[in-house]
C-alpha cells in the first residue's frame, strides 16, 4: 500500500499461502478423495480436483486484483498458483514420509496418489506445480479481461460445473419424460462414468458464452422498448406475465418429474415456515430460535387426529380436511400461550427461552410419559394421505399442489399484513419497542399476533409434512430446523418476502439437490453462512429499510442501480 506502482509481493504470496491452506483443508477433510471418482467432465476432471483448482483460480484472481498493472497481475497470479502448489506439495511430501493417518484419517496413500496424479513424488509434484501455476495465471487472465467477457466465461464455467454436478438428476428427469437418453446422451459420460462428456462440456460452455454475449448486447434494447410502451400495454404485459407464471407453476411437476418435484416440495415446506418466521423475526423483530415447536405441534395434531394406526390412546381417525383447521387453530393457540411468557423479554433472552420451548416440545413428544397419547419414540405411523376430490395426494406430484396452495396463501397473507396497520406496528416495534409503545401501539397484542401468525404458517407446514411423510417421529423436529429456517430468512434478507423464496431455494433446495455431498453438507453450509455474513450480510434480496441500515454511510436517496 506504500507505493502505487510497486509489485505487491506480499499479497501474492499471502494469498497463495491462504489458498494452499484451504486446499490442504479440503484435502484433509476428505473431499478430494471422496469425490475423486465423481467426474465433472467424464475422464477429464474430477470433482475433487475441481475444488482445488477453483481455490487456485479464485485466489489468483484476487491476487491479480491487488496489482497496479496488467502484466504485474499475470505474474502475481502465477506466483499465487505456484505458492499454492508448494503448500500442497508439502502436504504430499508429509503424507509420503510420515504416518499422518493415525491422527488425520484422510491423509491416506490414496490422497497422495490423487495429488500427484498417480505419478509418484518427484514427477507428480512437478505436474501439480505446473497445473497450479497455469490455473493461477488463468485466474489472473480472467481478471484482466473486460468485464463482459469475464462474466460470460465465469458463467460458462459455472454452468459446466453445475450441469456436471447435476448430471444424474438431469438424466433421470429427462429419461422419465419418455424420450429416453438418446436425445441428450452424447452430453454425458457413458456407462459407469459420471459428469458431462468432453463434447458436452465444450458445447455447454460455448452455448452459455454465446447466449450471454448475445443477451448482453440485446437486453438493453428490449428493455428500452418495453419501457417505451404506453402504461396500459405494460400493465397487460405484466398480467400476461403473471398468468404465465401461474401456468408454469401448475405445469411444473409434470416437467420436473418425481424427484425434482420432491425437492420443490421440501423447499416449499421450508419456504412456508420461512414466511412465518419472517413475520416474527423479520417484521416484528422477535428473535425466535424455537420455531420448530409449531412445526411439531402442527404435525402432531394432524397425526393424532388422522392416524389410522390404532396405537394411540384415542383414535380420532378424522379426515385430513377436518384436521387441518383444527391443527392450525391449535398452533395459533400455542403461539399465544408460548408468547405470553416471553412478552417482557428482549433480544437474546428471548432467543434462549424460545430455543428452550422448541426443545421442551421435542422432548415431550419423545417421552415415554406422553407415549400412549402421541406415540413417543415410535412416532405416529399410518397417517393417511389427504383425499382431494377423489385424488389421493400421496405422490410428490400431487402433494406439490397442496404445498403450492399453502405457500400462495402464506405469501398473500404476509404481503397484506406487511402493508397493513398491524404490519407497520410490527416494524415500529422492531425498530424501538419503547418508542412504539409511546406512540400508542399495544405491545402485548402486537407481539402475540406476530407469534400467532408465525405459528399458524409453521403449523400449516408441519401439517403438510405429516401427511407427506405418512409417519412422524420426534427426531424430525430438532433444533437444526429452527436454525435452518432462521438462516434461510437471513440469507434471503430479513423482512423481505421474496428473500424467503431465495433463502429457501439456497438453504433447503440446494442441499437436497446436492445430496451427494451428504457428509460435507453441513461443513459447506457453515462455511457459506460465515462467508455470506461477511460479504453480503443484508441478504440476497434485502428489504428496503434493512438495506439502508446496512449501508448507513451511503446517502439515503441515491437509487441503487444494479449492473445488468
Amino acid at each position, binding site marked *: 500500500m506504500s507505493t502505487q506502482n510497486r509489485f505487491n509481493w506480499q499479497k501474492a504470496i499471502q494469498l497463495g499461502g491462504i489458498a494452499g491452506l484451504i486446499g490442504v483443508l479440503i484435502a484433509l477433510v476428505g473431499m478430494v478423495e471422496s469425490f475423486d471418482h465423481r467426474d465433472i467432465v467424464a475422464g477429464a476432471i474430477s470433482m475433487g480436483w475441481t475444488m482445488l483448482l477453483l481455490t487456485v483460480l479464485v485466489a489468483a484472481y484476487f491476487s491479480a486484483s491487488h496489482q497496479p498493472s496488467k502484466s504485474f497481475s499475470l505474474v502475481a497470479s502465477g506466483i499465487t498458483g505456484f505458492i499454492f502448489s508448494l503448500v500442497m506439495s508439502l502436504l504430499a511430501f508429509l503424507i509420503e514420509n510420515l504416518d499422518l493417518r493415525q491422527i488425520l484419517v484422510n491423509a491416506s496413500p490414496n490422497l497422495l496418489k490423487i495429488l500427484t496424479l498417480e505419478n509418484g513424488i518427484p514427477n507428480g509434484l512437478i505436474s501439480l506445480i505446473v497445473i497450479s501455476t497455469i490455473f493461477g495465471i488463468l485466474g489472473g487472465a480472467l481478471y484482466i479481461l473486460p468485464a463482459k467477457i469475464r462474466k460470460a466465461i465465469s458463467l460458462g464455467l459455472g454452468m459446466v460445473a453445475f450441469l456436471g454436478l447435476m448430471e*444424474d*438428476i438431469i438424466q*433421470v*428427469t*429427462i*429419461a*422419465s*419424460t*419418455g*424420450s*429416453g437418453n*438418446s*436425445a441428450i446422451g452424447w452430453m454425458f459420460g*457413458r*456407462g*459407469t462414468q459420471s459428469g458431462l462428456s468432453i463434447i458436452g462440456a465444450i458445447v455447454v460452455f460455448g452455448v452459455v458464452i454465446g447466449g450471454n454475449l448475445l443477451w448482453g448486447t440485446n*437486453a438493453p434494447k*428490449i*428493455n428500452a422498448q*418495453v*419501457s417505451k410502451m404506453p402504461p396500459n400495454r*405494460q400493465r397487460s*404485459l*405484466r398480467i400476461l*406475465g403473471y398468468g*404465465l*407464471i401461474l401456468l*408454469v407453476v401448475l405445469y411444473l411437476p409434470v*416437467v420436473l*418429474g*418425481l*424427484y425434482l418435484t*420432491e*425437492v420443490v416440495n*421440501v423447499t416449499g415446506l421450508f419456504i412456508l415456515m420461512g414466511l412465518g418466521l419472517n413475520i416474527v423475526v423479520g417484521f416484528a423483530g422477535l428473535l425466535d430460535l424455537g420455531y420448530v415447536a409449531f412445526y411439531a405441534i402442527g404435525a402432531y395434531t394432524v397425526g393424532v387426529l388422522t392416524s*389410522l394406526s390404532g396405537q394411540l390412546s384415542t383414535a380420532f381417525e378424522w379426515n385430513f380436511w377436518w384436521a387441518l383447521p383444527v391443527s392450525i387453530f391449535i398452533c395459533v393457540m400455542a403461539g399465544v400461550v408460548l408468547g405470553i411468557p416471553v412478552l417482557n423479554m428482549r433480544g437474546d433472552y428471548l432467543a434462549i427461552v424460545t430455543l428452550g420451548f422448541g426443545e421442551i416440545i421435542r*422432548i415431550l413428544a*419423545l*417421552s*415415554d410419559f406422553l407415549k400412549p397419547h402421541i406415540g*413417543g*419414540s*415410535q*412416532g405416529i*405411523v*399410518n397417517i393417511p394421505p389427504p383425499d382431494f376430490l377423489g385424488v389421493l395426494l*400421496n405422490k410428490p406430484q400431487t402433494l406439490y399442489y397442496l404445498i403450492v396452495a399453502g405457500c400462495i396463501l402464506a405469501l398473500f397473507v404476509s404481503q397484506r399484513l406487511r402493508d397493513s396497520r398491524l404490519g407497520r406496528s410490527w416494524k415500529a416495534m422492531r425498530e424501538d419497542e419503547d418508542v412504539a409503545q409511546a406512540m400508542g401501539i399495544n405491545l402485548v397484542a402486537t407481539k402475540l399476533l406476530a407469534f400467532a401468525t408465525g405459528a399458524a404458517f409453521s403449523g400449516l407446514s408441519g401439517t403438510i409434512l405429516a401427511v407427506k*411423510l*405418512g*409417519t*412422524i*417421529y*420426534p*427426531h*424430525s423436529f430438532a433444533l437444526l430446523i429452527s436454525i435452518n429456517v432462521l438462516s434461510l430468512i437471513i440469507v434471503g434478507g430479513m423482512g423481505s418476502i421474496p428473500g424467503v423464496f431465495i433463502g429457501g431455494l439456497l438453504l433447503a433446495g440446494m442441499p*437436497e439437490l446436492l*445430496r451427494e455431498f*451428504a*457428509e460435507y*453438507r453441513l461443513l459447506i453450509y457453515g462455511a457459506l453462512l460465515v462467508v455470506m455474513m461477511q460479504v453480503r450480510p443484508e441478504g440476497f434480496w434485502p428489504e428496503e429499510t434493512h438495506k439502508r441500515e446496512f449501508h448507513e454511510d451511503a446517502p439515503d436517496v441515491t437509487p441503487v442501480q444494479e449492473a445488468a
Partner: protein
Amino acid sequence: MNKRLLALLSLLVIASMALAACGGGAPAAAAYECTDAIGCVTVAPGDPIHIAYALTVSGATASLGEDSKGAIEIAIADRGGELLGHPIELTGEDTLCSAEGGQAAGTKLSADATIVGIIGTNCSGEARAAMPLISQAGMVMISPSNTNPDLTNPDHPDSHPGYFRTAHNDLFQGRIAAEFAYNELGVRKAATIHDGSPYAESLQKVFADVFRELGGEVTAQEAINVGDTDMGPVLTTIAAGAPELIYFPIFEPEGPLVASKAKEISGLENAILMGADGLFADTFPETTGSAAVGMYLSGPYVDVNNSAYGEFLAKWADQIGGVPPSGFHAHAYDATNMLLNAIEQVAVVGEDGTVNIPRQALRDALYGLKGYAGLTGNLTCDANGDCATGEALGVFKLSQAEVDGAWPPPVFWQP
C-alpha cells in the same frame, strides 16, 4: 420490473422449447417384448446393470451405513464387478436415519428407472417413508438392518410388495435377550434403558414384556436422551430397585457411558450389563474400557470358523481396510448376493447382449427363495419378505481381549 418480466418470458420460452424437445424424441424400438406386470429394465449392450444402496452413511449412525456399504462393494467385487456380461453400477443415497431422509432418498431412487434393486435401508423409519415409492416404481429393496416388525407384517399398511429383509426383527432379538437373561444367567430382577430411538425403545419393550412373562421382575424402564453424557443420576435411580441385570440396547456414545458409569454406582457394582446389536461394534469395548469386561451383547451371529465368513473378513481387510465397523455386514452381503442371483435367474439375455430384467419376476424369484446358503445361515424368504433365518443371532461376552482390540468377540450362547 421490466427486466424481471423479460427474464421470465424468456424462461418460459426456454421451458416450452425444452418440453417440446422432450416430447419429440422417438421411442427406442425394442426387440424384446416385455410382458411383465410391472415392467422391465432393459440394459443395452455396454450399459451397466444399475443397483443402488439407501444407507445412512453420514451422521451419528454412519458406522451402520459404512458397514453395509462395504459389504455390498465386496459382493460386487466378488463377481469382478460384472453381471451377465454387463458392468454393475452401484450408486447410492444417504438416508440420514430419518423419515425425511428416507423419503427423499426413496424418491430420488424410484425416479431412476434404470435401477433394478436397492439394498437398504438401515433404519426402520427410513423404510416406512421410502418404501411406498420404491414399491410403486416396481423395484425391490432388501434391507440388511431394518428390525421393526411392522415392515413385514402383511396387515400393517407399512408393509409393501417388493420389500425384503435379511435382518431379524425386534421381536426375535428382544425375546432371545430376555430368555438368555432369565434362563441362562438366572437373573430375576432386571432394568432397561432406552435412548428414545424407535429401535431401542421397541427392543427394550419386547425384552421387558418377555422377561415379565417368564416370571422375572422389571424394576425400572428408564430412558436417556441422545447426547446425554452424565449417566450417574439415571443409574443411581435405577440402583434403588437393585436390579441384577441392566439391558440397554442403545448406541454409541451413550452405551459406553452407561456401561462405564454403572460400575461406579453403589448398588450396581455387580449388576450384569447387557446391550444389543446397536453396540455390537469394534469401537464399543475400546471406548468403554475396563467396564466392558464381562458384559454381554446380543447381536447378529456369524460363525467365525465358517470359512466363507473368514474369507469375507479377509476381503474386507484387503479391499476396505480394518474390520467391519458394525454388525450387519454379513446381512448386507447376503442381501446383495440374493439380489444379484435373482437378477441372473430372471434376466432375459438377447442375442446382442441386451439384458431385460422383468420386475415382477424378480420379486417372485426373491419371494420364492429357498435355502440360500449365505453368511448368516440358510436364508428362505416368506411371502411377507422376511428372509432372516433367526439362526444368525447370538449372545456374546466381552473380555479383556476385546478391550485390547480383538474383534469380533466369541459367541457365548445361542438359542
